[in-house]
C-alpha cells in the first residue's frame, strides 16, 4: 500500500513573533515540521505494510521538515518548489499537492495534519481530495487502511463518527492517533544522507495555479488592557463571596 504524507515547514510555536511592515518575523527561532504533521507521519507509518512517501511544498528550507519525516521512518521524500508558488493560497497548494500525488502514481492513501500552525486554515486536506476526485475523511482519531478501504473514527463537535471510504482516499488526523515516534539514531543518519528530489511546476506538468486569497497585512493583536485584581480576604469563604460579587458586577453573565 502506497501512502503519501503531506508535511509543511512552519515557525516554531514557541517562537516570539513580531510584525514589521505587515510581515511576521520570528528572529532566529528555528523552522520546524508543522506539529500536526508529525501525527500525520505517525498515522501513515502505523499502517501495515505501508510504503510511506513524504511530500512538501515550500522553499528549500522545507527540506528539513522532509528530513524529519524520513528520520521518523518514511521511505522517500519529494519537495515541490517553484518561485511561482510563493504566497500560494490553500487552493493553489491543494492543486499542486494533487499534481505531485498524481506524479508519484498509484497512491492508495494521502494523510494530512489537522492544520498548519501558521495560517491555521485546516482546509488543504479536503481541497486536495477534491482536486484528486477522492473522498476526504477529516479529523481522524484512528485510521485503518487495507483491502481497498479505509476506516476512520472522526472527532466532531457532537461526538465520534465512524466512517468507511473506498481507496484511494484522503484523511487528516488529530492528536488521538497516538504520540508521534521519535526519530531513531539510524533514521537520523539515513535522513541526513538522503538526496531529496525537487520538482518544479514544469516537472509536475501543470501551469501555476492562481491564488485568489491574499493576506496583505499582518498585525499584532491589541494587547489586553486588563489589570488583574487580586482578591484577598480573611477566609476562603470570604474570598469566594467577594469574587462572586465582583464577577456579577462585571455583568458578563
Amino acid at each position, binding site marked *: 500500500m502506497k501512502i503519501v504524507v503531506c508535511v509543511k515547514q512552519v515557525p516554531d510555536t514557541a517562537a516570539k513573533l513580531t510584525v514589521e511592515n505587515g510581515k511576521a518575523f520570528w528572529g532566529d527561532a528555528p523552522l520546524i515540521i508543522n506539529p500536526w504533521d508529525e501525527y500525520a507521519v505517525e498515522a501513515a507509518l502505523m499502517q501495515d505494510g505501508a510504503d510511506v512517501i513524504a511530500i512538501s511544498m515550500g522553499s528549500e528550507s522545507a527540506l528539513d521538515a522532509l528530513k524529519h519525516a524520513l528520520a521518523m521512518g518514511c521511505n522517500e521524500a519529494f519537495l515541490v518548489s517553484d518561485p511561482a508558488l510563493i504566497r500560494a493560497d490553500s487552493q493553489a497548494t491543494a492543486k499542486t499537492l494533487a499534481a505531485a500525488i498524481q506524479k508519484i502514481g498509484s497512491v492508495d492513501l494521502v494523510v494530512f495534519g489537522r492544520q498548519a500552525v501558521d495560517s491555521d486554515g485546516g482546509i488543504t486536506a479536503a481541497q486536495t481530495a477534491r482536486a484528486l476526485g477522492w473522498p476526504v475523511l477529516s479529523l481522524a482519531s484512528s485510521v485503518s487502511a487495507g483491502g481497498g478501504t479505509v476506516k476512520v473514527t472522526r472527532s466532531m463537535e457532537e461526538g465520534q463518527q465512524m466512517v468507511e471510504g473506498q481507496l484511494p482516499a484522503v484523511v487528516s488526523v488529530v492528536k488521538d492517533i497516538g504520540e508521534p515516534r521519535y526519530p531513531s539514531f539510524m533514521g537520523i543518519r539515513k535522513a541526513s544522507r538522503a538526496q531529496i528530489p525537487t520538482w518544479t511546476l514544469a516537472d509536475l506538468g501543470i501551469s501555476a495555479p492562481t491564488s485568489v486569497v491574499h493576506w496583505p497585512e499582518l498585525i499584532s493583536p491589541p494587547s489586553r488592557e486588563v489589570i488583574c485584581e487580586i482578591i484577598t480576604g480573611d477566609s476562603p469563604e470570604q474570598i469566594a463571596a467577594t469574587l462572586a460579587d465582583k464577577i456579577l458586577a462585571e455583568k458578563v*453573565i
Partner: protein
Amino acid sequence: MSNKVFVYVDQFKGTALPTSWEVVGVGRTLADQLGGTVSALVIGQNVENLAQQAIRYGADEAMLADNAVFADYRAEPYATAVSKAAADAAILLFPTTTSGREIAGLSAMDLNSGVLTDVTALELQDGKIIATKPVYGGKLLSKVTCDATPQIITLRTRAFPMPEVDPSRTGVVNRFDSSVTEASVTTQVSGYTQVEGGVSLTDANIIVSGGRGVSNNSKLSPPAGMDDKQAEIWRAQEGFRLVGELASVLGAAVGASRAAVDAGYIPYSHQVGQTGKVVSPSLYIACGISGAIQHQAGMRTSKTIVAINKDGEAPIFKLARFGVVGDLYDI
C-alpha cells in the same frame, strides 16, 4: 454582479448548531449593506423546521435539500449540494465548525474561489470583504481578502452576536434538487458515539477549566492500594468532578489544559488551546492552570478571565481580570 448572500446552517441529526444563527445574523447585515438577499442553505433529512428557523433569525429564503442521502453528514454529497445551490452567490458564509470548514474548502474548489477561514471580524468595501483572522495560534492577526466569487468565509463561533428571533418573519422555502445519488457517494457512516452530555465547549457562555493543579489536593486520601501515579490521577479525577459540579451549577462547560489531558485526568475533547479547542466564552475560570502561551491560544479572546492559582507569578494572571492567589481546594 450578484448581491446574494448564502449562509450554511450546520446541523446534527436535525438540531442546528447555535453558531449557525450567528452566521445568519452576519449574512443579514452584509445583505442589507449590499441591497441583496440572504438565502439559508439547509441540508439533511427531516430538517425543514430548520429552514423556517433560519428565516426567523433573519434569512429571506431557505434552500432546502432534504433527502435520505443526507441523513448522515458526509463531506462530498453535502459540498456538492452547497456548490450547486450557491453557484451564483456573491458571498457564501459558514460557521467555523468541523463540517462548515470542510464544506467551505470543497465548495471553493468546485466554484473556483477561495476560503477565508475562522474570521473574527469583517467589513465590506465596494462589495469586497476585508476580513480579519487570527494566525500563528492567535499570536498575530491577518487581514485577508478573496479575489474571486463567491467570497467564501467561515466565521469563528461566538465572534459575532446572536441575532434576535423574529417569530413573525416569513419567507419562502425552496426545495432544490441536489442531483446527489447514493450510488455516487463512496463513503459510509457506520456509527456514532455521542459526547457525554453537558454544554459544548465552543458554544459555552461560561467555561470552568482545570489544569495540572487540579491533581494537587492534599486533603484527599486516595483508596488504599494505589501507587503514586494512580493516586495522582485519582485525586485529579476527584478534582475534575468538583470542577464539573461547579460547571453544572453555573451552566458552564468543562475545559482543561493539555497537561491535564496528557496526564490522563480528563479526555482530549476537553482540551483548550492551540492543539485543542479555541473558545471565547463570556467568563473563563482557570483553576490550577499556569497559562502557557499554547493554552492562551485557545482562550485569549474570552471576555472575562478569572484565575485561581497558588503561584502569584503564573502568566495566567497577566490575562485575568480577577485573580485569587491561593490553593484551589481552600477556595
